[in-house]
């Protein structure tokens, strides 16, 4: 079930979006890392410079001490000794700082240790120089030795400091290199990544705006179609409702409210209110049907009455079908029809049917009366007349004999009338059993039935092959008897009757006015005679009951024969027509369905 147009782009849109977001996240994390590293490396540089400075300070303090000592030794002025005295503190301060700075560096700590030893030795050498330069303890050789040793120590210290500086520089270089390696993304790559992300976002934007356009179009269509639906519901007197079985939510269409005689959306429908307007007689069955929906997820046709707020009773028909939407939730779609008009019409029809049945029964009982009770006295009259023997007649007056003969004729005519009338009504009321028979057989039967009169009139009947059809055999036989009998009866005096019977297949579309169009093929059977014919203006009326074209003294008959023919053909969903030229002959055409 397709509820809404499928927007496939939404998935790809999501993918594009996620990719773009990931790229941006990646780029910003790289930038962050880059920043971090920059910070680290600048710290590192600072660190190296600090060590460098402290080492230089250390050196300069020692140099100050050396200079001061030299000045003192030369001048023996104690003022020159001041830097020497402070230098020790300075060296110590620098040392502590250095120790802290190189705390995480094992080889530097070792170097610092060695430097410390050297510096300590240097200060011992200073002490010795001072001692041996003092006039009281002057010793030229030892002073020279210590001065020279001091010189060598000083060089060692310088060497050590340089070594330490070098190590720091090397370390810095290495670390900087590592940072450089770590941020391996070139700016070009970053920019291209950024551009990709940007283009992705642009793509997404384009897709979104496109979808938006499509949504707008569909929305418009949806609005139109929902408008059409609600309009057609209004016109067609039906309504729809949806029951979301998962959330148990029920929605009525506007027309549902109108059918209930309410303003649209006048209450929020739920399971309880479904029964609110149902007629008390039907509440139970409708409640059962509703329970059936929940259990069987299906609602067959339910017929019931509702009572509108103004107490008008309307007849409803409801059907439901369970649908599963794209999200997989089960929705029962129900359609209500207001069938009040049809229902009332139906009731009327039923009543008419009952009336028809009743009148049919009356007709049947009339048939019985005619076939039995009416014939009874007539038969008696005829029998009693037949009992008037020739001996009795011999003693009667001429006029009495004449009256007896008139009574006899009238009684005979009465019998023929009753028999024909019965035959006519029986063509309609008796069982209509259709059997597939060869019409030639039925024609043969009809001919043998009429053998006497055929022989008497020396009639010639020419037949070509007739079809095999599904018919009521005795009725078709009667039809043949009546048609041929009719031709024989109204033959021309002094002319041997000739009847030509032929058959051909025709299509009903060729005879739109007279043939049942739902049946495609018919057999057209024509009976052409060379009889006296009739005025074509009577070609319709001759099929009407009791319509006669001739006086009964000339041609005895009841005017029922052709009416029976018409009825028989109608029983077969066919048609009969007649045409004639006065004095030349008549053509009767029978159409029977294939």
């Amino acid at each position: 079930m397709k509820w809404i147009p499928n927007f496939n782009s939404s998935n790809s849109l999501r993918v594009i979006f996620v990719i773009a977001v990931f790229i941006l996240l990646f780029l910003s994390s790289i930038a962050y890392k880059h920043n971090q590293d920059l910070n680290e490396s600048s710290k590192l540089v600072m660190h190296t410079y600090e060590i460098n400075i402290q080492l230089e300070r250390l050196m300069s303090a020692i140099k100050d001490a050396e200079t001061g000592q030299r000045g003192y030794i030369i001048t023996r002025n104690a003022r020159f000794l001041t830097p020497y005295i402070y230098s020790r503190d300075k060296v110590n301060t620098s040392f502590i700082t250095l120790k802290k700075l190189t705390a995480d560096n094992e080889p530097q700590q070792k170097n610092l240790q060695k430097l410390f030893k050297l510096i300590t030795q240097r200060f011992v050498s200073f002490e010795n120089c001072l001692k041996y330069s003092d006039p009281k303890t002057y010793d030229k050789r030892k002073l020279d030795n210590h001065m020279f040793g001091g010189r060598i120590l000083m060089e060692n210290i310088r060497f050590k400091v340089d070594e330490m500086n070098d190590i720091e520089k090397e370390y810095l270089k290495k670390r900087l290199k590592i940072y450089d390696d770590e941020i391996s993304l070139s700016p070009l790559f970053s920019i291209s990544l950024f551009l990709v992300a940007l283009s992705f976002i642009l793509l997404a934007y384009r897709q979104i705006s496109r979808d938006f356009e499509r949504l707008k179009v569909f929305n418009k269509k949806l609005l139109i179609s929902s408008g059409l639906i609600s309009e057609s519901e209004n016109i067609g007197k039906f309504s729809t409702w949806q029951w979301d079985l998962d959330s148990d939510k029920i929605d009525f269409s506007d027309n549902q409210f109108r059918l209930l005689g309410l303003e649209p959306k006048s209450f929020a429908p739920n399971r309880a209110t479904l029964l609110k307007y149902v007629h008390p007689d039907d509440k139970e069955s409708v409640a059962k049907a509703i329970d059936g929906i929940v259990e069987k997820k299906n609602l067959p046709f339910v017929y019931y009455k509702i009572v509108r707020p103004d107490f008008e009773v309307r007849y409803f028909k409801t059907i439901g079908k369970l649908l599963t939407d794209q999200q997989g939730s089960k929705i029962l779609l129900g359609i209500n029809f207001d069938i009040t008009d049809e229902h009332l019409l139906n009731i009327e029809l039923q009543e008419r049917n009952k009336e028809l049945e009743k009148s049919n029964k009356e007709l049947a009982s009339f048939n019985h009366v005619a076939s039995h009770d009416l014939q009874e006295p007539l038969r008696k009259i005829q029998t009693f007349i037949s009992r008037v023997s020739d001996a009795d007649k011999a003693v009667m007056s001429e006029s009495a004999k004449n009256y007896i003969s008139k009574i006899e004729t009238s009684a005979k005519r009465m019998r023929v009338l009753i028999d024909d009338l019965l035959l006519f009504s029986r063509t309609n009321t008796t069982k209509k059993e259709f059997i597939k028979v060869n019409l030639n057989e039925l024609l043969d039967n009809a001919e043998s039935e009429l053998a006497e009169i055929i022989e008497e009139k020396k009639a010639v009947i020419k037949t070509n092959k007739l079809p095999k059809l599904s018919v009521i055999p005795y009725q078709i036989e009667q039809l043949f008897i009546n048609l041929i009998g009719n031709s024989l009866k109204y033959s021309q005096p002094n002319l041997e009757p000739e009847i030509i019977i032929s058959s051909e297949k025709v299509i009903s579309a060729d005879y739109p006015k007279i043939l049942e169009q739902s049946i495609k093929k018919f057999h057209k059977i024509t009976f052409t005679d060379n009889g006296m014919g009739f005025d074509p203006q009577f070609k319709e009326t001759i099929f009407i009951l009791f319509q006669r074209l001739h006086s009964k003294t000339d041609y005895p008959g009841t005017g029922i024969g052709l009416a029976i023919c018409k009825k028989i053909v109608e029983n077969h969903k066919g048609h009969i027509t007649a045409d004639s030229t006065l004095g030349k002959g008549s053509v009767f055409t029978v159409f029977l369905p294939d």
Partner: protein
Amino acid sequence: MQKNALHILLADDDEDDRLFFKDAFEEIKIQTNVNFVHDGMQLMDHLMNQDNKLPDILFLDLNMPKKTGKECLIEIKKTDHLKDIIIAIYSTSSSEEDIEDTFIQGANIYIKKPSDFNTLKKIINEVVTVNWHYHTSGLNRDNFLLRLK
């Protein structure tokens, strides 16, 4: 009462018909013993009474008061010592339904009451002289209704 005479019973409520029947039998030259009953009840009483000789041929009208001919026919065919009686339906009606029904219920022949006395005589002559054993074995729907040649 003649000894070897054919026993005929007519069940008919119509007095005139009984009269025609009686006259017709008197005029044909066959030794017969003709008895009459006036309705279905009387017919069954007559047949059930052991003192009465069973008829060789029963002419049965269909439309009778108290018990119709069809009801009598069914009852006779159900009763062991009566079921072999030759039954000729003798009725004014010539409706397909009546002919079909009585044929199915086991009547031997169906006669439509004629409207001519001479025809009645011919019919009675035909029915009385027919070889019933032969006729019954070859009985079918087509020859059930008596048609005079």
